[in-house]
């Protein structure tokens, strides 16, 4: 097993913003094609962790290895080129461009125009947004935006996908559909999903990493995580549902 290089690995990762220790000695490993959920209360350092993996925040110390290559000192656009796709927590479509153009820009970076056209069509069909291809992204409803954002990420076909709260603000039906979509994406891509919604996590996760005050405090199956008294106390406020 030791010969298998993980798709992403962090070693003793630390970030300090002034006096705030946002990430503490995080050692995180994800295998190719694995799906991992990351949970933690507000301010646990989940978004900072994602920003580290995508080069938006530079670590104070420690290493981030993508398929064995240190990416912690790269330019902000390099992780995207290497094959790390991210859907950020804050909606970040190009509001003035159409749904089609948003996805096409992602596909076109690595493909010819003809291929990008085909991939864009297929991706929009996959996320169920093809009927809205000509709609300006800024006019979409919230759930639809999330799906287009997922489409933007998968159109570039990155081996590693990071999704920050993909089901936030969705209706129950939309959450179920998003879970289905994520499981389908996981057949070809490794995924890290940050989420708050425990029901959603039960639908998709096999393994969960718990962050608290910037540090990893536990990694286990969803059921064991949710029955752990310490986690109930810090994360669920002693009231698991």
């Amino acid at each position, binding site marked *: 097993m030791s010969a298998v290089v993980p798709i992403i690995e962090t070693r003793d990762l630390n970030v300090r913003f002034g006096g705030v220790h946002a990430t503490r000695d995080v050692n995180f490993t994800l295998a190719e094609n694995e799906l991992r959920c990351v949970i933690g209360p507000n301010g646990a350092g989940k978004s900072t962790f994602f920003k580290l993996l995508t080069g938006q925040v530079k670590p104070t110390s420690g290493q981030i290895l993508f398929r064995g290559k240190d990416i912690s000192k790269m330019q*902000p*656009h390099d992780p995207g080129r290497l094959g790390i796709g991210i859907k950020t927590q804050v909606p970040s479509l*190009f509001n003035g*461009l159409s749904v089609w153009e948003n996805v096409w*820009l992602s596909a076109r*970076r690595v493909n010819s125009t003809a291929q990008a056209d085909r991939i864009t069509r297929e991706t929009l069909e996959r996320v169920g947004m093809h009927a809205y291809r000509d709609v300006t992204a800024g006019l979409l409803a919230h759930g639809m935006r999330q799906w287009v954002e997922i489409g933007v990420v998968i159109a570039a076909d990155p081996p590693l996908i990071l999704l920050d709260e993909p089901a936030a603000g969705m209706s129950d039906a939309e959450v179920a559909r998003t879970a289905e979509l994520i499981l389908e994406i996981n057949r070809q891509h490794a995924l890290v999903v940050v989420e708050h919604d425990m029901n959603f996590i039960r639908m998709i996760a096999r393994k969960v990493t718990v962050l608290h005050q910037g540090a990893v405090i536990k990694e286990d199956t969803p059921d064991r995580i949710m029955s752990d008294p310490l986690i109930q106390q810090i994360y669920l406020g002693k009231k698991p549902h």
Partner: protein
Amino acid sequence: MNRFAKSWTSAALSLAIGLALLVGLPGVLDDYTLIEVTIYAVMSILGVSLAFIWGFGGILCFGQAAFFGLGAYVYAIAVMNMGDSTVPFLLAIVVPALFAALLGYVIFYGRLSDVYMGVITLTVTLILFNLINSTAGPEWRIGSAALGGFNGIPAIPTLNLPGLPDEVLTPKDLFYVTFSCLLLVYLGLRVLISSKIGRVIIAAKENEQRVLLLGYDARAYKLFSFTVGGAIAGLAGCLFANWGAFTSPTIFGLAQSAQIIIWVIVGGLGTLVGPIVGCVAIQWLTSQIGTQQTLNSNLVLGAILVVFVLLVPRGIVPSIGDLIDKAWRRLRGSKSSEATP
């Protein structure tokens, strides 16, 4: 971005109108008016250069006049030394482009914020103004071209047929050349905007962080659009020097820089045709105001800017586009009751 501005129908319409004017105007206008239209076209090219980098690239450059002035001076100095205008014409595009590339490199790769972008571009323009302004003495000359300081450079040789220095263009020829340049610049930018590069440039204006996360180096795309803008402004400067056979430091002045921004705001940010409309309207208005003594032209320009910012914030062309859009939908709606999603 505005749908009206994006559609190829509007681009084809604009080009058709442009071609009709190119062919038709010399037949119907007297020489004086034709020369007047030529300067409108020159300034429109300058307006389009800012319309591209600001409206599509999101780069608010206060120093577009620097590239414009540089184009004029490079052409003047080169043509006075070389005689034949072919190489000077090209230099007047290449030198401002290189200058823009250098300036843009410092700004974008140094990750300076938008405020500093404005400050730096404005400062560079004013430095050039002061520099050229203080070159009045006879010792300030490059080859056979005296820089002339605040007096400017008079009697600049006009463009000639490539390789034939004696075949100098007439004012009518200059109209054809200038107007064709405007149409080519418009067409070129249209094609660029709808290409991959253009879409990334627009996307970087909308959300630079997202562009980076997709794996595009936003700095390179911004630098590219800034350089293209510099090249186009340089071309306009060269044509300006040809139009009056004269150039002076005032083209580097604050008033010139501010005027370009007003054209874009009045015509419509985010379109290419808008700033042409804005430029022609304001230039025409300025020359009309110049014929009377009661009102100061700068005062009127200022008032127009305030009115537009407050009442027509999107500018002339997008507002008209919206009206046409609405009318078209109403027309279609009355023909068929089916609603489109």
